[in-house]
């Protein structure tokens, strides 16, 4: 469990980038954090494993305070983080060695490291690439490698900080499939994103605007308010946009309809009366 208690943060002496953020992320949750560029969502993400420490307020990870130097390694082992640029998070020159980087830092004994490496590569489907040089991989493969590197530390919470932003559709799909698998396997997932379609994967959404939490709810609740989202520089998935247009003329499609398939079902029902 991660608890943020009225967290504020600003770089140097400048004004707050995020202010007075209070948020509890429960175990097993799939939380999406959305917001336009500069809304402070990545700043929040970097507080979750103590990469940034609050200017005021506290962050607790499983009861440990991130500003406590003694606990920082335990916190970071527990909260894995996958970043946006796949290139800039791969440290070594062979795929399997990179997966082992985290466990090495944790001081895991050698045979156990290999077990973890094998397991993590298998989980992200990168076993066949284990001897490759990372720079020869595609963007999507690099990102899967980065995820494997995080998984090898056996975290209970994984934060994806715009991890799909730089990928092509195929790479994005692969990463999303892994997120789903991990969530199904009981990991807590925190996903920072600008892609509103991805939000549909989550069971809870936080919308950030101007450094504060503007909305907090299930995807259904969030997308009921398309105009508010648009006013904050965000968008709604196409099925939601069409749904709202149809509803404006009295078609009465329920708010829980968020995907193309369920929208098509509802339209079918209404047209074939």
């Amino acid at each position, binding site marked *: 469990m991660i608890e943020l208690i009225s967290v504020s943060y600003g770089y140097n002496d400048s004004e707050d980038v995020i202010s007075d953020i209070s948020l509890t992320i429960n175990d097993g949750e799939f939380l999406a954090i959305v917001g*336009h560029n500069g809304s402070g969502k990545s700043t929040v993400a970097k507080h979750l494993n103590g990469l940034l420490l609050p200017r005021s307020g506290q962050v607790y990870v499983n009861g440990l305070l991130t500003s406590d130097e003694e606990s920082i390694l335990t916190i970071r082992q527990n909260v894995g983080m996958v970043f946006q640029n796949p290139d800039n998070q791969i440290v070594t020159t062979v795929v399997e060695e990179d997966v082992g980087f985290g466990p090495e830092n944790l001081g895991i004994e050698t045979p156990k490291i290999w077990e973890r490496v094998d397991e993590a590569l298998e989980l992200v489907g990168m076993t066949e690439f284990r001897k490759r040089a990372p720079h020869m991989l595609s963007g999507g493969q690099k990102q899967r490698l980065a995820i494997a590197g995080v998984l090898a530390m056996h975290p209970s919470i994984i934060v994806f900080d715009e991890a799909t932003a730089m990928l092509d559709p*195929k790479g994005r799909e692969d990463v999303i499939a892994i997120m789903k698998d991990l969530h199904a396997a009981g990991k807590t997932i925190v996903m920072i994103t600008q892609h509103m379609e991805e939000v549909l994967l989550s069971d809870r959404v936080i919308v950030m605007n101007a450094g504060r939490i503007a909305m907090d709810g299930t995807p259904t609740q969030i997308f009921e308010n398309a105009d508010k989202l648009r006013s904050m520089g965000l*968008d709604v998935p*196409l099925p939601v946009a069409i749904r709202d247009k*149809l509803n404006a003329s009295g078609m009465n499609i329920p708010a829980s309809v968020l995907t193309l398939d369920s929208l098509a079902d509802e339209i*079918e029902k209404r047209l074939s009366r």
Partner: protein
Amino acid sequence: MIEFLNVTHTYMNNSELAHNAISDISFNVSEGEFFCIIGQTGSGKSTLIQHINGLIMPTCGKVLVDGFDMSQKKQLISGRRLVGMVFQYPEHQLFAETVYKDIEFGVANLGITGDEAHERITSAMEAVGLCVSEFSEKSPFDLSGGEKRRVALAGIIAMRPKYLVLDEPMAGLDPMGRQSILSLLQQLQSELGITIIMVSHSMDDIVHVATRIAILSRGKIAAIGTPGEVFKNCELNAMGLKLPQSIQLIRSLRERGIEIENDMLDEDAIADELLRRYLHA
């Protein structure tokens, strides 16, 4: 007009690692078009577009820009002046100490100075929506991601290219940033008559702007035509690509027996059509 005549490009020619990035590609882009190129990573898109301003030369075949053969050194110089090239993450090419000077770089390289240069720089800034008095003297490195990208775009626009080639110009931007770049490009096409050639992954954006699209798969053109034509017939899933969501919706409605014209791309048009049927039912 841009003409590709049987263009093949082979990387690592004469070695055991030789492979064709694109093979035997022929197509034209006419003036005033908004031409989009779609393809998976590794389909040869980047190789293809770099031929347009002679950064890569064809191994076989010819690329002509307004008749200039881009593999002839003298013609290349004339051809290159017609083509503006915007790479992925163009903000990574910014270098000067002020926004103004960075935009000036390309203009000065064309040999343009004085009043005309100033006019070009300021009008390019206005075109991309950067306030001249506010941004001119700022360092490009102090700007936000979206602003940096617009500075980079202005640097190319100020060179007044006839053809603007862009590789994933919206990558990594938030929904609003994407929308503003897209409408900027549309404006350049409709108001200034610049021909746009854009590589993009985001089908949903493309359907709204493209006059024609080409689907590239394994170095070959798998389909070419208007978005309506291409999405109606082409099996994109087999090429690792996704259909635009509007088309996906139409297809799944048709599967359910709701026969909607399957070349409708605009979500408003789809909604209107559905409402019309709903009110008639």
